[in-house]
């Protein structure tokens, strides 16, 4: 309720141009700001820290929508910060020329890869992975090779790379592992695909939780939620020896924000435990810094695979071609 009041107040004050409070508007995606997501806790912590400011989240559908909104708004965007662009959207977001360097010390970062981007600052990360139902599948495949050779009943639920971030993750993952042979691999993989859904929610809840197939494309961190909140070990992620494609979610500030110091304060705050402690179970992702004892114990039981990445530029240059390749392999 307090959260609602704060928001209502924020709305009321932001409509008055000369509000006494400094309002920081952050574009993000909607599961981040939900009641049980990390948003409310982070907002309270940041507002307690800055004193006279008001943090206001504007929730959009997903990372792609944040980018889309920036594009449409151009100069004079209503946002001071954007939070939720993943690595694969960075190149396109950078090209808009609307973002400013963060100038935050990246020493606290604890990512599986080195990070030296001066515009985008990571706040969490995770690997794409196939989550399996251990009641249907006792021995999950240990690699793509094994997956392709697995018996027929090992069926998969995937997401479409044209409409979902996880779907795009798999596209990049397979491209990274197989390169030019990706077309063949997709053709082989498609033999065991039960469904390619439009969104992760659809795949995970309408199909996977209904027991329709033993494996679903998701995140390596998904089992953490089941183990910590639902207290079941039934759903686990399969670790592939070829490595897993990495997703890093980042935030960035806009160049024309009227509150550049406050925006930088927020980015600095992002790499502190006060922000990061809400990430593991709130966003079900790995925190971007070492949380020590504050990291829920279930995170020690997650898989720890090797990370695969393309540079943001490679992704932005090739995305269309790779999607076309996937489409050709799938429609064939």
């Amino acid at each position: 309720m307090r959260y609602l009041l704060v928001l209502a107040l924020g709305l009321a004050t932001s409509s008055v141009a000369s509000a006494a409070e400094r309002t920081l508007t952050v574009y993000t995606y909607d599961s981040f700001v939900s009641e049980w997501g990390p948003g409310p806790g982070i907002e309270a912590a940041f507002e307690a820290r800055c004193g006279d400011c008001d943090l206001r989240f504007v929730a959009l559908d997903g990372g792609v929508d944040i980018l889309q909104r920036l594009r449409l708004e151009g100069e004079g965007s209503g946002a001071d910060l954007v939070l939720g662009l993943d690595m694969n959207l960075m190149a396109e977001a950078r090209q808009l020329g609307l973002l400013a360097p963060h100038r935050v010390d990246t020493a606290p970062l604890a990512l599986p890869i080195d990070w030296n981007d001066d515009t985008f600052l990571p706040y969490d990360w995770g690997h794409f992975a196939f989550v399996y139902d251990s009641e249907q599948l006792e021995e999950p495949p240990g690699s793509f090779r094994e997956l392709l050779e697995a018996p027929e009943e090992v069926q998969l639920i995937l997401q479409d790379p044209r409409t979902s971030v996880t779907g795009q993750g798999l596209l990049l993952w397979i491209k990274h592992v197989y390169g030019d042979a990706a077309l063949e691999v997709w053709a082989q993989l498609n033999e065991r695909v039960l469904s390619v859904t439009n969104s992760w929610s659809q795949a995970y809840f309408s199909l996977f939780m209904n027991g329709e197939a033993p494996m679903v494309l998701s995140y390596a961190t998904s089992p953490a939620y089941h183990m910590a909140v639902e207290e079941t070990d039934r759903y686990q992620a399969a670790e592939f020896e070829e490595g897993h494609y990495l997703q890093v979610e980042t935030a960035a500030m806009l160049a024309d924000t009227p509150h550049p110091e406050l925006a930088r304060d927020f980015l600095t705050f992002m790499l502190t435990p006060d922000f990061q402690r809400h990430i593991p179970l709130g966003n079900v992702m790995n925190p971007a810094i070492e949380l020590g004892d504050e990291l829920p114990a279930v995170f020690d039981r997650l898989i720890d695979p090797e990370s695969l990445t393309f540079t943001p530029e490679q992704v932005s240059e090739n995305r269309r071609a790779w999607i076309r390749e996937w489409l050709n392999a799938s429609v064939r």
Partner: protein
Amino acid sequence: MAQRQRALSTPPRRPRWASLSRWPPSLGIAALTAVAGLGLGSLGALLWQARELHPAMLWQSPWLAAVLRFTLWQATLSTLLAVGLAVPVALALARRPRFPGRALLLRAMELSLVLPTLIGLFGLVAVHGRRGWAAPLWEWLLGSESGYLYGLSGIVLAHVFYNLPLSARLMLQALESAPAAHWRLAAQLGLTRRTLWRTLEWPRLAPLLPRLAALVFTLCFTSFAIVMTLGGGPRSSTLEVALYQALKFDHDLALAALLALTQLVICLSLWLLALSRGGAPSLVVGQVTLPLQGRWHRRDAVGASRLTDAVWLTALAALLLPPLLAVVAAGLTGLPDLPRSASLWPAAARSLVMALGAGLGALALAVALLTGSRWLAACGRRWAALLMEAGGQLILVIPALVLGTGLFLLLRPTLGSGWQGYALVVLVNAFMALPFAMQVVRGALPGLSAPEQRLAEQFGIRGRARLRWLVWPRLRRPLALALAYAMTLSLGDFSVIALFGSPSAPTLPMLLYQQLGGYRWQGAAATALLLMALVVLIFALLGWLTRRPPRYPFTRYPHEERHARVSRSDVSL
């Protein structure tokens, strides 16, 4: 006689429609302007932003052509099955005005339309999936695993699940609005099933069918999540997927606008065709619509029809109830956590208020467009009338994504946060519910029959009095049903509200998607349960409020008697 008539009706010899004021056309035009402005304006904004357009892309890309073919094929098949099978179901329901569970079945029919796709799909998968409730039965019958949920059969099944109940419900409404005297006469004459079909049932359904088919076709043509999830891969895809990719990932506004235009042209030309086919409204003008209540003995209700009706109604229940039950069962497991969710009740209240706004808006627009169209038709401007009615369907055929992006481009400098966003959502929802509202109200709007008209003229009943005593009584039940449909559609809508971002607190469907995004599956199912309960409540409340005709000073005569008296005096004129 003629002299007397002239003396009574002043001024004399006015054309039929001119006796009404000028407001039908002007209101109709205002509504049409609003709809077209919103729909075409947003599309126009996209086109303007896109600068150059290459229509050749459509047929040069073999993939797009294949998508278009598949979309047309699945939509046609779904429509034929959904509407075709709805006819015997509606007839059976009309023939059996009372059997245990009838009310429940009707409520369930109203539910399926507004179930968010994600939840509807969950229910369908729980029943028809590879490990669903029906799987053992299937295995026992065929000896092999059931795989019919994935592929064209699954898509069609889901579309029939969503659209057959809607079609049957609207047909039932049309059947029940047949004048009571007709049913009495049919009972007295002991008409057989076939004669009844020819003389009473078909004339009621025929004017409804083309529009209904066009509506269902549009819904199936633009269906997105169902086709992708159950299609089993990108082989079965819809135009909307291509559009989504173009608009979101590739930021190719030109291609997006082109795809939207393609969809617009296909669906709107279908609408125009449907409207011109089913143009003539039913000539049988209803008495005050009464539920049949089984007051008249129907000869066709005995014998073999007992069996066939039982089969149809069981089939309907088998199609409809298990998936809904699956959702309810899932929701019940999440129910204990429900009161602890702080945002749930505010979200429910917010959703209800917005739904009421959107519902009333849709109703007002529907009445304005229909009276305007009727007026134009009466003046002999048939095409203008058709266009006005087709205009009401415009928002439904413009993809929500295009609408949202276009509106955003149009309104950007002023599109603030907070209540403006909500107001816009209410507005767009009202437009989206418009085709449904029009579908329901339309049959009830033809106005008065010629004899009644003459009588009213003779007694000088016009203006407010005519509206109050002659028009309103026969409009209130359809209006209530239309309001219920429009409200629940808006209640379950997620697509529009997601477009503008949620600056503050969520609505009920948004909450549901947030819960899913945060793995709270059971909470989401409980939210869906609450959503369904609200839908049932709205339909039940509005149905209860209009359950019987209002009391008039002369209600000491039974209604059918009154009709008979009118007819007799009619003859004497």
